């Protein structure tokens, strides 16, 4: 019993180590926010403008919080130069369509500011993976067309991926 378990683990480990393509590809990172339920109250972006400049975009800002990314040891011992990307899935809860969805962010300086759309990724960090966690202040802004909302609440799930340079 213990033999077969060890053999299975060994096989997984071998498969992992023997796949250069996988080690080069982006690997998803565990992430946590300092806020338990990051929430933005949407506002009509152009409600106060004349009709020629109006649209149905809603925008909401999430108050600044800490974003902590857990870096696997193979990037940190020894420290390797890495790129970390923030990407958005194609789908989002509460949205019938994600074509208008836009997530942008400002950081405390360690992460790069950026903007990303559904199905795309943007560079969040480039540099040494010096420790087991990478932390910075981040404030997100969500922008989406009200016409694309199928529910009154939209939930999006950023994905953080790392790749060694």
């Amino acid at each position, binding site marked *: 019993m213990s033999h077969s378990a060890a053999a299975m683990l060994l096989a997984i480990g071998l498969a992992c180590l023997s796949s250069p393509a996988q080690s080069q590809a982006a690997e998803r990172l565990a992430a946590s926010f300092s806020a338990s339920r990051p929430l933005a109250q949407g506002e009509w972006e152009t409600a106060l403008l004349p009709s020629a400049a109006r649209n149905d975009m*809603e925008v909401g800002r999430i108050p600044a919080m800490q974003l902590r990314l857990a870096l696997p040891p193979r990037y940190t011992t020894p420290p390797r130069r890495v790129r970390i990307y923030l990407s958005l899935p194609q789908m989002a809860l509460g949205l019938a369509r994600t074509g208008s969805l836009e997530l942008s962010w400002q950081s405390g300086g360690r992460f790069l500011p950026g903007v990303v759309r559904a199905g795309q990724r943007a560079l969040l960090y480039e540099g040494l993976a010096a420790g087991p966690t990478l932390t910075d202040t981040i404030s997100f802004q969500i922008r989406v067309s009200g016409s694309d909302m199928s529910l009154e609440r939209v939930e999006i799930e950023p994905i953080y991926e790392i790749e060694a340079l």
Partner: protein
Amino acid sequence: MRLLSAGFAVIAALASQPALAQTLALVGAGNQIGLLVGSTGGTVDTVNFNFSSQPVGTAVPQSGAAIPIEIALFSKGGAASAARVVSLTASPAVASASGLTSGANVVPWTEISWTVASIVSSVGTTTVIGPAAGSFPATGPTTTLISLQCTTPSTYCYVHADYTFSYKNTNVVPAGTYTGVIVYTVSML
């Protein structure tokens, strides 16, 4: 041994995938109605009628500049948005309740008429302009100047119309500068 620990790491990562989820939420904006009368930025536009070189009391009217008026509905969407009706009325400001005044002299609001032109609305908007031409009542609010309804579930629809105001010039009044203020109100039924 190192291989084993690598294997454990892979399993741990796979097992914790659901815990990776860190969602960001946006609560949709509430219903909002918009109104623009004339210039943006809080400016109170003035329509001037100048009779310094034109006879008064001849019933020959004089028109002023056109004033754009827009009303808009920002809606949370869904089928209910198509049922919402937004309407616009106008009524004299409290200080101008009796009409346009110059000291103790008064020109009644019924002397001011309007016509409507250049009506533009967004796709999926039912617009009712009515009446297309009219006068302010002596007191109180007008009938509905514009009503707007999104005909299909939508989050945003609007109508833009240009109002041209005229002074009927039906009475001889004492010389002076007569001023009055009209307040526009948009409401959602």
